[in-house]
C-alpha cells in the first residue's frame, strides 16, 4: 500500500492534535507516514505517532529546517515525494501549512487543495467556501495530491502503527535559506488550547469595549477549557492580539462549540467560524446578523450574561 505523508505539527516537542486527525484521515487512503521536521523529536513523540497509526516516521530533525521561512519544509517533503512516491501528502491548513503545501506543489508539479474540511477516496476533498455559503468537492488532477486539511475536520482515532523510523538528511538549497528567522517573539496568552485546534472557542467583539474587559471573555473561556478568539473590530482596536482574530482575514475555526459575545456577525467574522458545530450568541442587539446562525442566543448585556454564565458553569463542575 502506498504511503500517505503527514507533515507533523509540533510545539515544544509535543505532537499537535491536528496531526492525529491527519493520521486518522490518512489511514483510509494508504499507509500513514509521519514526517517530523525540525528539532524536538523524542520517544514520547514517536509513541504518540505510533498510537495514532503511523506506519513510518521520517525524521528530519536538523536545526536548520526551522531556521528559515517555510521553504526548508517544502524541500524536505519534495525529497520524500521523489524518493518514496507517496499516494498523497497531507498538511494542516494553518497559514504556514498552506504555504508549505503551495511551495511543494510547485516543486513537484502537483495540484494542491487548501482548507479541506473532509477527505475521501481518491483524495477528493470537501471544502466550504464563500463564508460557508457553498460546499465544494475538489480533487487534484495532476501529480501527487497535496491537501491542506483544516484542524477539527476529523476525530482522531487511536490504532497502533509500526512507526518504523527513518532518518532523513536534506541538503538545503540556497533558495531555501533565503529568508532567515532571527528571532521568535512569543505573545502567548496563558496556557489555553490553540485557537484553531480548540474544541471550544469563546470570542469577544466590539461589544466587549476594552482590552481590560477581555478578562471576562478569558474567564468564561477558562471555565470551559476553551481558546479565546476576537473579532476584527476587537483586534483592530488593539484590545486583543492579532493572532487571535477569527474571520476572513484571520483564523478559520470549526470547534464543537463557539460562543460569540458582543460580536455582530459581519460576513468577515462569519467566514471564520460558520462551520462551528454549535454556536451560542450573546449580543444586546436583537437585530445582529450573528443571531441568524445561532443555535442558542441571548439578547442581553454581555457584562451581565457572561459573568453569570461563567459562574453557572463553575457551579456545575
Amino acid at each position, binding site marked *: 500500500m502506498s504511503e500517505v505523508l503527514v507533515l507533523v505539527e509540533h510545539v515544544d516537542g509535543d505532537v499537535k492534535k491536528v496531526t492525529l486527525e491527519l493520521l486518522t484521515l490518512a489511514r483510509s487512503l494508504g499507509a500513514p507516514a509521519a514526517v517530523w521536521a525540525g528539532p524536538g523529536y523524542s520517544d514520547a513523540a514517536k509513541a504518540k505517532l505510533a498510537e495514532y497509526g503511523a506506519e513510518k516516521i521520517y525524521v528530519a530533525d536538523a536545526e536548520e529546517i526551522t531556521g528559515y521561512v517555510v521553504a526548508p519544509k517544502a524541500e524536505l517533503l519534495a525529497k520524500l515525494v521523489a524518493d518514496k512516491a507517496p499516494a498523497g501528502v497531507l498538511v494542516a491548513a494553518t497559514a504556514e501549512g498552506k504555504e508549505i503545501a503551495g511551495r511543494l506543489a510547485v516543486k513537484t508539479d502537483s495540484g494542491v487543495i*487548501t482548507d479541506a474540511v473532509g477527505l475521501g477516496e481518491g483524495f477528493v476533498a470537501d471544502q466550504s467556501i464563500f463564508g460557508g455559503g457553498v460546499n465544494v468537492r475538489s480533487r487534484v488532477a495532476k501529480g501527487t495530491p497535496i491537501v491542506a486539511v483544516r484542524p477539527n475536520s476529523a476525530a482522531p482515532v487511536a490504532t497502533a502503527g509500526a512507526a518504523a523510523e527513518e532518518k532523513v538528511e536534506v541538503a538545503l538549497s540556497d533558495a531555501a535559506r533565503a529568508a532567515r528567522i532571527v528571532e521568535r517573539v512569543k505573545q502567548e496568552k496563558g496556557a489555553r488550547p490553540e485557537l484553531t485546534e480548540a474544541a471550544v472557542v469563546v470570542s469577544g467583539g466590539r461589544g466587549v469595549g476594552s482590552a481590560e474587559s477581555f478578562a471576562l471573555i478569558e474567564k468564561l473561556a477558562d471555565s470551559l477549557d476553551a481558546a479565546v478568539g476576537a473579532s476584527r473590530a476587537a483586534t483592530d482596536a488593539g484590545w486583543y492580539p492579532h493572532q487571535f482574530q477569527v474571520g476572513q482575514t484571520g483564523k478559520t475555526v470549526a470547534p464543537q462549540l463557539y460562543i460569540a459575545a458582543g460580536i455582530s456577525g459581519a460576513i468577515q467574522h462569519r467566514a471564520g467560524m460558520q462551520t462551528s458545530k454549535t454556536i451560542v450568541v450573546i449580543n444586546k442587539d436583537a437585530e445582529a446578523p450573528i443571531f441568524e446562525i445561532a443555535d442558542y442566543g441571548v439578547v442581553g448585556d454581555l457584562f451581565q450574561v457572561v459573568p453569570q454564565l461563567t459562574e453557572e458553569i463553575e457551579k456545575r463542575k
Partner: protein
Amino acid sequence: MNIVVCVKQVPDTATERKLRSDDKTLDRDAADGVVNELDEYAVEEALKLKEAHGGEVTVLTMGPGKATETIRKALAMGADKAVHLSDDALHGSDALSTSYAMAQALKKIGFDLVVLGSESTDARTGVLAAMLAERLGVPQLSLAKKVEVNGSAIAIERLTDYGYDKVEASLPAVVSVVEKINEPRYPSFKGIMAAKKKPVETLGIADAEISADQVGLANAWSEVVDFAAAPPRAAGTIVKDEGDGGAKIAEFLASKKFV
C-alpha cells in the same frame, strides 16, 4: 526601488457569491467586483516604501477586462503605472497556473520587491506569495505585519500562532502583508483624476511568454468535482435576557453535554 504590487479583483463579500454551473468557476457577473481588501494594504505598503526609499510602484493584476476598475483604484491611491495580464486563455486558472502566469509577468516587468495581500477573500488559498517566491527563486517574506528596507536588506515581522517571527533577507524578495500592517489611504480627488492619465499596459500570454498549456481551466492542477449551496442552519432558540440569560445558556450547554 522598483516595487510591483499585485492586486486582485474579487466579488464583493457583501453580495451573494456563486460558482458558475457550466464550468464551476467563479461567477464574476453575479457580484460586484472590488479590490481584494488585503491588496489595498499591499498597495499602501508599496507606496510607503516608495515614499521612504524612492523608486516606482507598478500595479500588476491578472483578470478579465473588468479588472481595470481594480487597477484604477490602485493608481488613484498613488501607484505610478500598471500592467494588466489579461487573456481568455487564463480563464479558470488555479493557484498553480496563476502563480506561473504572474511569475512570468513579474520576470518581464522586473522588480526589487513584489508586494501582495496574504490571501484573497474569494479563493482564500493563501498560497500565492509562497508559490511566487518558489517560482522566482527569491526570499518568501509572507504574512508580514511590519516591513523595513535598508539598502538591499529587508526585514519583516511575520505573523505566527504564538506571536511573530523576525525575518531577514536580501532584495529582491516577495512580501505578503496582513491587515495590521498599515491603514490604507483613500484615493484623493486629485489622485482619481491623475489615475486616468497613468499608463496601463495590457499583456496577453504571448507577451509575457506564458505557455498556453500551463494555464486555464483545461490545464488546471486541481478541479472542482461538484458543488452545492450549503444547507441553511436550523433556526436556533433566541431568548431575551431577563436576568437569567447566563443561567439559561448554562442549561443549554448542559443539555448538549458541554458542561
